[in-house]
């Protein structure tokens, strides 16, 4: 639509007439697929959250525009209509804008990760050339075109280049290092290739493959890099995501590419920023850090006194980085100490002290208020004598006289707190009661719990984060905001819940001991995933082919060897009856009765994996191991062998070879080998007979 106009004005301006294929494309993912900002993001997409009085997506679009990007696809998922509406009314979508923008939206049910969105974009086949991939919550002043050129230059020497990812150097202890995105990168310093990528949050030990050091004469291990969430991608990135539907995040992608490097010959390069700024607002502490960086002008020219649009006038800058939009009223003896931004038509009362904070538009702040390190959005009303330190206060909040907000709090939009309320540290509040559809707690209980800390006049409910797999790490990171190490009752409660959960999980696992599960975390997770797939597959009678596909994708996701796959699949099948009925094998005939239909159902799966002698031996080994660890199973082993032999899953030769080889575990000699002895002799006899016949 507007591309005509752009090219016209470009050609008019003279020097650079651009060919169609040279149009610089960018894909902006306007969703972070996380709930780090909940409950604020319940009603507003993260991309539209204000950062120093400006929606985050504006920074991202501005930096793309300043880089000279000509066309941007904005991909939105959560609250897509709001983003679409915002962009429509903004200067970005005007026909005269030098960068044309196309909004693509997708419902959150169909798109749950970066991987899903890229697969969707691939499906729409919008992009044919190199493109810039960026998240809408990235604040950067990087000139991307030279990096794009560098990427193209590298392709001349390395045909397999799929991506150049941009990192920024920040030493440990830097405020813009996100605790949940700590990473270690192994790179080849001579050409900048990424050799290994590991996320190190909560890890004490790292292991690197020896081949990496053998292959490359020089390897740099870097811990001082921060992921900027900006990458230059070759067009092949999209089909790669489509082919591997287990790639969910950027990390999955990189790992996948590195694992398959020899086969597909794909390579990833890194680019380290020199002298420019880029940071990703991944969570609330990062929001704090990036806001400070913007206020202290690290992100220049993306600073409040140069950013403006038709609707929002620019801030004026006075010394000590105090920014004010027009119409700000400062009462006598009020102090804006340093690093403060105040939005349009806000009023600040007498003797109020503000430092290192952002105050949005149309806020009214009373007398004798203390505000330190707080982010206050639009239309907030703060009455006299309030005390706010290290907090995020969303749109339309009302704090009555003498409210004290603890450190690290997030107050959701529309919350009203009665006079004198004290909010403990690290609380997240929202204006409506939590939805209890997915919680087993009844709403009464919730209300009781919620109403307690606040007086009856408040409109506020405690937000509780749904328990996720990685909730430990997450809550730890959130707690770090503005706190040293401070335990409070709520986090303890959380921990209790988590522990209870863990206990349950452990019980599940203890019921069935499947034998030597490798220490390797990958194999263990692989096993769990396979077990899950099989259980579902059996319950829902899913076809064998689909299950094989599912197991294969897990195999690539966790990078396990073929031998492990064979063994673990067999083990998973054998343990299925006890997992499903939640009781251990009894050692009676019932076991076999339960197991038989399962094996029957999974015959196609087994046939797929047990194709040659070696795989059969693996499976027999697994069978044996399983037997060693589940003594009750021994009784059924003979029947299992007979069944599998009868169904042509295991060949005679394999069974005999297995039998002649000494077992790994000597205890198996007595038990398992003994039980199978009659079956083996029967086999041998049958063989002799058949050979005689043939003679």
């Amino acid at each position: 639509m507007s591309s005509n106009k752009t090219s016209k004005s470009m050609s008019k301006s003279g020097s650079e007439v651009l060919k169609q294929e040279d149009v610089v494309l960018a894909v902006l993912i306007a969703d972070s697929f996380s709930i780090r900002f909940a409950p604020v993001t319940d009603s507003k997409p993260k991309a539209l959250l204000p950062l120093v009085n400006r929606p985050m997506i504006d920074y991202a679009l501005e930096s793309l525009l300043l880089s000279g990007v000509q066309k941007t696809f904005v991909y939105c998922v959560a609250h897509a209509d709001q983003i679409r509406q915002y962009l429509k009314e903004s200067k970005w979508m005007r026909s005269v804008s030098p960068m044309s923008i196309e909004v693509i939206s997708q419902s959150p049910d169909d798109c749950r990760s970066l991987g899903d969105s890229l697969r969707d974009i691939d499906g729409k086949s919008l992009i044919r050339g190199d493109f810039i991939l960026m998240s809408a919550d990235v604040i950067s002043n990087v000139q991307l075109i030279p990096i794009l050129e560098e990427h193209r230059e590298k392709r001349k020497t390395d045909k397999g280049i799929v991506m150049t990812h941009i990192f920024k150097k920040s030493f440990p202890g830097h405020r813009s290092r996100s605790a949940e995105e700590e990473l270690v990168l192994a790179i080849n310093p001579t050409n900048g290739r990424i050799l290994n990528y590991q996320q190190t949050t909560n890890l004490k030990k790292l292991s690197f493959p020896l081949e990496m050091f053998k292959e490359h004469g020089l390897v740099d291990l870097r811990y001082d890099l921060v992921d900027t969430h900006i990458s230059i991608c070759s067009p092949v990135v999209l089909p790669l995501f489509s082919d591997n539907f287990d790639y969910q995040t950027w990390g999955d992608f990189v790992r996948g590419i590195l694992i398959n490097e020899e086969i597909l010959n794909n390579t990833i390069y890194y680019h380290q920023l020199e002298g420019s700024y880029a940071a990703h607002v991944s969570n609330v502490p990062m929001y704090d850090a990036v806001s400070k960086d913007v206020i202290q002008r690290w992100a220049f020219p993306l600073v409040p006194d140069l950013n403006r649009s038709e609707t929002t006038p620019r801030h004026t800058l006075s010394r000590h980085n105090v920014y004010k939009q027009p119409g700000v009223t400062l009462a006598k003896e009020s102090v804006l100490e340093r690093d403060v931004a105040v939005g349009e038509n806000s009023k600040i009362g007498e003797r109020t002290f503000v430092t290192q904070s952002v105050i949005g538009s149309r806020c009214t702040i009373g007398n004798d208020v203390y505000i330190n390190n707080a982010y206050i959005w639009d239309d907030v009303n703060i009455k006299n004598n309030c005390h706010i330190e290290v907090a995020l206060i969303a749109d339309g909040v009302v704090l009555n006289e003498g409210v004290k907000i603890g450190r690290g709090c997030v107050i959701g939009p529309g919350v009203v707190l009665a006079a004198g309320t004290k909010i403990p540290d690290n609380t997240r509040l929202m204006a409506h009661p939590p939805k209890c559809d997915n919680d087993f707690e009844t709403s009464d209980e919730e209300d009781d719990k919620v109403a307690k800390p606040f007086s009856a006049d408040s409109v506020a409910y405690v937000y509780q984060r749904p328990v996720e797999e990685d909730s430990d790490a997450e809550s730890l990171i959130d707690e770090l905001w503005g706190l040293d190490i401070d335990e409070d009752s709520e986090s303890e409660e959380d921990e209790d819940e988590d522990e209870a959960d863990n206990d349950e999980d452990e019980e599940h696992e203890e019921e069935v001991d499947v034998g030597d599960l490798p220490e390797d975390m990958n194999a263990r997770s692989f096993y769990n995933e396979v077990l899950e797939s099989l259980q579902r597959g059996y319950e829902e009678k899913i076809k064998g082919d689909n299950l094989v596909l599912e197991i294969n994708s897990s195999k690539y996701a966790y990078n396990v060897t073929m031998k492990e796959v064979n063994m673990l699949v067999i083990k998973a099948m054998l343990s299925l009856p006890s997992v499903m009925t939640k009781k251990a094998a009894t050692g009676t005939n019932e076991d076999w009765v339960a197991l038989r239909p399962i094996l029957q159902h999974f015959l196609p799966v087994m046939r797929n994996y047990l194709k040659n002698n070696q795989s059969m031996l693996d499976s027999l080994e697994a069978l044996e191991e399983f037997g060693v660890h589940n003594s009750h199973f021994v009784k059924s082993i003979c029947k299992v062998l007979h069944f599998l032999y009868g169904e042509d899953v295991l060949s005679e030769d394999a069974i005999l070879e297995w039998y002649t080889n000494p077992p790994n575990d000597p205890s198996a000699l007595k038990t398992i080998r003994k039980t199978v002895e009659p079956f083996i002799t029967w086999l041998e006899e049958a063989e002799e007979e058949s050979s005689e016949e043939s003679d």
Partner: protein
Amino acid sequence: MPSLESEIEGIIETFTNNLKQRKFKGSRDLALNSVQLWKKIIGQMKWQNARELMDTIKKIGKDLAETAPSETVIGNMTRRMLKIVRDEYAMLQKGKQEESDLQDSLQKILTADESDSDYTKNIPLLKPAIMEHIGEFLAELESSEIDISAQALEHIHANEIIMTIGYSKTVSAFLKSAAKNRVFQVIVAECAPFFHGHQLAADLAEARISTTLIPDSAIFAMMARVNKVIIGTHSVMANGGLKAVCGTHTLALAAKHYSVPFVVCAPMFKLCPEYVCSLDQDGFNQFVSPEEVLNNDEGKLVSKVNVYNPIFDYVPPELVTLFISNTGGNAPSYIYRLLSELYHPLDVQL
């Protein structure tokens, strides 16, 4: 901005975008480009009379100035456009009467408001006249650098030692032009933290001028042997003070101490009718990323210190000896007179 054709809006957008991307190299380039922008706008826009045209120019000009508040040149060019419109209108209105007389006497300046016509008459010849005038002005802009360097021989004498700071295209051309006939030495202060002085030193050395690069801290020590300081500036304020690259004030004070003449090369388009009432004045200075002063990767340090990186210095007029503009040499006290010739008093406040 109501009722602006999208074509014009597109031109403006391209200009502001280039401005934001810092595609203009130096203030002369910016001045040239903004005048070309005005030429396009005035040429393509539909307007009935001069009043309407001037209102639109003011509106667009204000908007442009907001985009880059510290670039005074944009505002200056807007004022020049208004002045051209006024002059041409008056000329066509009153016949061949010489308009510049109007501002000669104090009385006429004071009564300018009353005598000012309302510019509402529709004069068909106005547009071509304005376009022609803008064309002349463009030519003047283009030759400003050459006009200044043509005066070099009057100011630089044989075997003199000249000191300068940072990088200025005008100064570079000025010195090179003098070097064609005279032998002299140049000392360049490097101008940390941007180190633009390095570039100038390299340029001059290439032109076979004997050049010495010194750190900013050595300015005072070296001043004793210097015959003349010649610098460029970002803009000249209404009182004859300078808005120049950070470090210039130091240089000016040192020159004053040793009574070394302090000469400023400033083409006329850098003359700005605004006063400096406070160093905190909005839009006077520009603070860029502190990256050059402190690396952002410095771990814990970044959150513990506040680093400022201003670009400009203010040099009061009493420290300046002489301005060399494309029309000749002027003392700082004469700037007000030049300004009244360049801009109409009613346009000072856009």
